[in-house]
């Protein structure tokens, strides 16, 4: 049985090659995975093939972060989440393409070429976890691991018509997730269904002594099934429904709200007044943390090396980094270095931290005021055309306007498909209070059961 399951997976990986969604897989590695599945026996994810974003380290396949600077790198250790997947009987199917070092919202910033949207090759799948999302949407794998720093799983989940869950910061170990924005990074699963994504999240969650920022909690139990939503209050934050919101997105969200109400939920209009500060604050905090984290790529201990013209050590650092990093990574390192440089820290970084504090307080007070969950659009538009936002980095950043705030606040949030507009998937976002994944997932499961995700809205 296992041999035919692996053969089927190989066939799907080969026939989806036009998506450019994978960066590495091999017959030999899959044979090893199959042997592991047999030795584990019955596990919660027995025989489930899972794609892993290529910024999560594995010892059996290379990890490049879609960057030339890590070409050929094979990790000496394995991420905690990968160890937990294997222990649960899952099979690591492949490493998935991404925006270089997870910096981007379209998976166009990969050094190994862009990922194509499964429904239309001229469109982007979203990003930065676009390879993982495309592989799930194209039915190559039922589930995948992505990572979120500022919406990099929810946004591609919405674009591709699948489910993506960002857990509470600290719910899942970051050990072996290549560091980008350390106060924001979360390993986050994709699934074709709420159940598939939730089962993967249960397996990878829980305290890890190798990551001091994980909560001292056992693995998540997301098995709650709700039959009705009576007694549950869903907040609709005004800031996420601006007057100029795309009409198809608005219609899909109105349908989602109608379904929630029919199931007995109380709908309440609320305000998160600092929402507008989220993207500007994010694009200070994130580059600042990125500039610090990416200082480790210096051409000395691993990765590719370029000898600079001067031939000395600093020339080696500069040439390795200047030639090894792509355009978006260099921009973020420059902006982050600038925001942390003498004379500018108060003007940029301190103000961004103050804005982040206010965004956290917005969420805390709305949840303390009797709102159980928030419901919003995941993205301001459906999947956009490749190249459309490449010339202007700020337009690309604004694709994350509805997903950034939950990342800054560290609260759980997820996207699930609501229906289609113009033939393209529209995602709805549920946001919960810190450590409130179980209830959020239960509501999503019920909402999913009363929606037709592939039907055109209106």
């Amino acid at each position, binding site marked *: 049985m296992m041999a035919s399951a692996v053969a089927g997976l190989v066939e799907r990986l080969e026939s989806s090659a036009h998506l450019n969604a994978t960066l590495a897989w091999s017959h030999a590695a899959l044979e090893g995975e199959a042997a592991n599945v047999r030795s584990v026996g019955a596990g919660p994810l027995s025989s489930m093939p899972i794609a892993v974003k290529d910024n999560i380290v594995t010892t059996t396949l290379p990890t490049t972060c879609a960057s030339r600077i890590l070409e050929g790198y094979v990790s000496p250790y*394995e991420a905690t989440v990968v160890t937990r997947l294997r222990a649960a009987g899952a099979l690591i199917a492949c490493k998935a393409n991404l925006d270089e070092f997870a910096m981007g919202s379209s998976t166009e910033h990969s050094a190994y070429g862009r990922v194509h949207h499964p429904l239309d090759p001229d469109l982007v799948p979203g990003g930065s976890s676009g390879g993982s999302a495309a592989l799930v949407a194209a039915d190559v794998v039922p589930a995948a691991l992505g990572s979120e720093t500022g919406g990099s799983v929810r946004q591609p989940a919405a674009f591709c018509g699948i489910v993506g869950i960002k857990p509470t910061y600290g719910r899942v170990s970051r050990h072996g997730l290549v560091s980008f924005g350390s106060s924001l990074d979360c390993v986050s699963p994709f699934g074709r269904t709420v159940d598939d994504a939730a089962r993967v999240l249960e397996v990878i969650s829980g305290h890890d*002594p*190798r990551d001091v920022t994980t909560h001292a909690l056992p693995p998540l139990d997301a098995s709650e099934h709700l039959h009705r939503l009576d007694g549950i209050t869903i907040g609709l934050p005004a800031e996420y429904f601006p007057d100029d919101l795309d009409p198809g997105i608005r219609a899909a969200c109105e349908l989602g709200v109608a379904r929630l109400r029919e199931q007995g939920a109380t709908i309440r209009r609320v305000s998160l007044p600092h929402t507008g*500060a989220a993207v500007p604050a994010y694009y200070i905090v994130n580059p600042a943390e990125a500039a610090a984290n990416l200082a480790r790529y210096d051409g000395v201990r691993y990765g590719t090396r370029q000898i600079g013209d001067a031939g000395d050590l600093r*020339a080696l650092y500069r040439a390795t*980094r200047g030639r090894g990093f792509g355009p978006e990574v*260099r*921009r973020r390192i420059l902006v982050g270095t600038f*925001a942390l440089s003498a004379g500018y820290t108060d003007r940029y970084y301190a103000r961004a*931290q103050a804005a982040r504090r206010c965004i956290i307080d917005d969420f805390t007070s709305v949840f303390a005021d009797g709102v159980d969950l928030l419901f919003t659009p995941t993205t301001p538009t459906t999947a956009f055309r490749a190249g459309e936002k490449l010339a202007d980095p700020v337009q690309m950043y604004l694709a994350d306007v509805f997903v950034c705030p939950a990342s800054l606040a560290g609260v759980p949030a997820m996207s699930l498909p609501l229906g289609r507009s113009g033939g393209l998937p529209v995602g709805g976002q549920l946001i919960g209070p810190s450590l409130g994944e179980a209830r959020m997932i239960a509501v999503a499961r019920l909402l999913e059961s009363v929606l037709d995700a592939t039907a055109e809205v209106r």
Partner: protein
Amino acid sequence: MKIGTGDVRHIATLAELEISEAELPSLAADMERIVTFVEQLPDIPVGDRTSVTVGPSALRLREDVVDPVPLARPPEANAPAWRDGFFVVPALDGLGEDE
């Protein structure tokens, strides 16, 4: 805020990034666009709001025992240059002998 090619050259030096002269104008334009955008941040009184905590409020230390991560391959497997147990690098300019 105006950002010129000289600013980018200076920041690139701080960040240890080689940037060619030809790339400086477009990078300066990108940075100016990004910095102008993030300056839209509202003027929130910073006060005591500089401390942001996400995740557990108290970070706990591990037991003080040696617990090495078992390595699947040794450091030299990924080293660009390695000799006698050391990573090999070019000399700092003006220090030591030529490598």
